[in-house]
């Protein structure tokens, strides 16, 4: 691991470096092991950046694959090398935590199409020596999962004790359980759904259009041309961020409170705290994320629809599954509302699979799966502990 990178100042420069030479483990697959994509194209060579926590046991049966959400990365339980902030799921993954690294071996990889060291649009195309940009083929959720399976194979793991994740990570969990049912002992999809809804696709399109409307996007060639569509990416993030919260949660946090002033300024500065908050979210996101990656990964979510491959019948996707599922949703999540989780639960019931389901009461919206939610922690801990008892007695 290139630990020296941790001392670099946070910022776009550090983020740029992570795309090719990440501060984490890297698995490389040569031309003889191409990643075959749903689009019919393939990627070779392929690079997958990943982190591990805990120790793999002798019979390699205690591995938990954690799948990250849209703009997450492999740094699930250790400091992020770009932002210097704690890992995105430090509340859940670690020694004595609900996903206990004293007991389990946790693997988390950056998705293909990402920008933190797995092959993505910001990676250097070995054929040209230039960043891929839009020359990278379109990636789907099944493609991401196929790449993860290559990594899991390379680590010598036949069956994962659990595949866990929220939002886009939850889509990957569902995809794993359908594509490799015998390799997934338990599955923990959180705040997710079996397909991306029309409304969700619509929000993603707003984000993509904001990026592509930025003159600095340069048809996706901004890295080669030395520009950056910062404004477009920040707007995309601001729009998306609203969908991660709830009206109630926003109101509790900000209400109509003004930012550093006594009264409105009769202008377009950030008068309200909520505006200032969103601007900050947008700007800090630009420092750590690649605009083209945002296009690719949002598109992957848009295309996701498990039932489509099974004649529109979701239950058929899970037929004969021996995997133990635990599905969780949040009451105030309007990006992946409870009804989406219930669709999955209903299908699992219809296919006779073992499934548990919890709807967690919170006003913090979709983002709740990343926050301090004791009921979620208790659910994860209880589910994994009992599954471990079933697995090892």
């Amino acid at each position, binding site marked *: 691991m290139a630990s020296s990178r941790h001392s670099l100042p946070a910022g776009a420069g550090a983020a740029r470096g992570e795309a090719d030479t990440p501060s984490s483990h890297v698995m490389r697959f040569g031309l003889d092991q191409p990643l075959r994509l749903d689009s019919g194209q393939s990627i070779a060579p392929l690079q997958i950046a990943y982190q591990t926590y805990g120790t793999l046991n002798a019979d390699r049966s205690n591995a938990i694959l954690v799948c990250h959400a849209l703009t997450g990365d492999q740094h699930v339980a250790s400091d992020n090398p770009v932002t210097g902030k704690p890992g995105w799921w430090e509340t859940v993954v670690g020694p004595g935590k609900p996903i206990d690294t004293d007991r389990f071996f946790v693997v988390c990889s950056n998705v293909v199409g990402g920008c933190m060291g797995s092959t993505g649009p910001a990676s250097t195309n070995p054929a040209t020596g230039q960043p891929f940009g839009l020359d990278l083929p379109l990636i789907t959720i099944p493609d991401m999962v196929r790449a993860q399976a290559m990594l899991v194979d390379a680590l010598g793991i036949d069956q994962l004790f659990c595949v866990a994740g929220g939002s886009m990570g939850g889509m990957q969990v569902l995809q794993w359980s359908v594509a490799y049912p015998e390799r997934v002992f338990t599955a923990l999809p959180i705040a997710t759904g079996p397909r991306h809804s029309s409304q969700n696709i619509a929000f993603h399109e707003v984000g993509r259009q904001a990026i592509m409307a930025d003159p600095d996007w340069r048809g996706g060639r901004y890295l080669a041309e030395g520009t950056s569509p910062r404004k477009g990416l920040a707007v995309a993030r601001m729009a998306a961020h609203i969908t991660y919260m709830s009206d109630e949660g926003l109101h509790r946090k900000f209400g109509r409170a003004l930012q550093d002033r006594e009264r409105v300024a009769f202008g377009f500065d950030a008068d309200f705290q909520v505006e200032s908050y969103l601007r900050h979210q947008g700007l800090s996101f630009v420092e750590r994320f690649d605009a083209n990656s945002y296009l690719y990964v949002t598109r992957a979510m848009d295309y996701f629809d498990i039932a489509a491959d099974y004649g529109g019948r979701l239950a058929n996707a899970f037929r004969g599954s021996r995997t133990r599922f635990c599905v969780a949703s949040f009451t105030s999540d309007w990006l992946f509302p409870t009804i989406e989780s219930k669709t999955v*639960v209903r299908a699992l019931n219809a296919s006779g699979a073992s499934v*548990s389901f919890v709807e967690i009461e919170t006003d913090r919206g979709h983002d709740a799966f990343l926050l301090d939610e004791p009921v979620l922690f*208790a659910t994860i801990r209880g589910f994994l502990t009992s599954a471990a008892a079933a697995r090892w007695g």
Partner: protein
Amino acid sequence: MTPIDIHSRADVKRIDLLVIAGLVAPGSRVLDVGCGDGELLALLQKERRVEGRGIELSQAGVNESLARGLSVIQGDADTDLVDYPDACFDYVILSDTIQAMVRPKQVLTEMLRIGRKAIVSFPNFGHWTVRASLGFKGRMPVTENLPYSWYDTPNIHFCTLRDFTGLCGEVGAKIETPIVLDAGGRRMTSAPWWFWNLLGQQAVFLLSR
């Protein structure tokens, strides 16, 4: 089928759960509707090696069930049973819950659709103490078995043994085994229905379509 000695099980507080467990064939598929903290499902898994599933409304119940290693779905039996396919369970159990259902008739119908057999246990509202409370004191009964006041009770559809057998007739359920327990939790031997309805405190019915 080995019977379960219901008087040697100090670990299980509710006698009706042991009676129910005694009715379930080993190795069968069971759905427990309103499974609470999963006590019955855990008992059935241990004693009968069943493949168990549960539905429970309360978050606390679901979490306790999960911690026991049970497969439990948070949901409302009044609305969610429609999601299950026909005949997907050997037994569908409703223990001490039918009186809290908004639509008990519909729930019973769904139970008989998705299970080959249904088991229902409930407190007998026809018990003489209940009749006495209403008849002599003129007040809704508050007892050890029915501990709620009328205004905050989750129990909205109490029934007597007679009422329940009437409902069974309406939905076409065949009563295979009626078991009635007296105030001491002892199984009452054969007696006329009026006697059961007066002295039975708790009933457990094994039903089939």
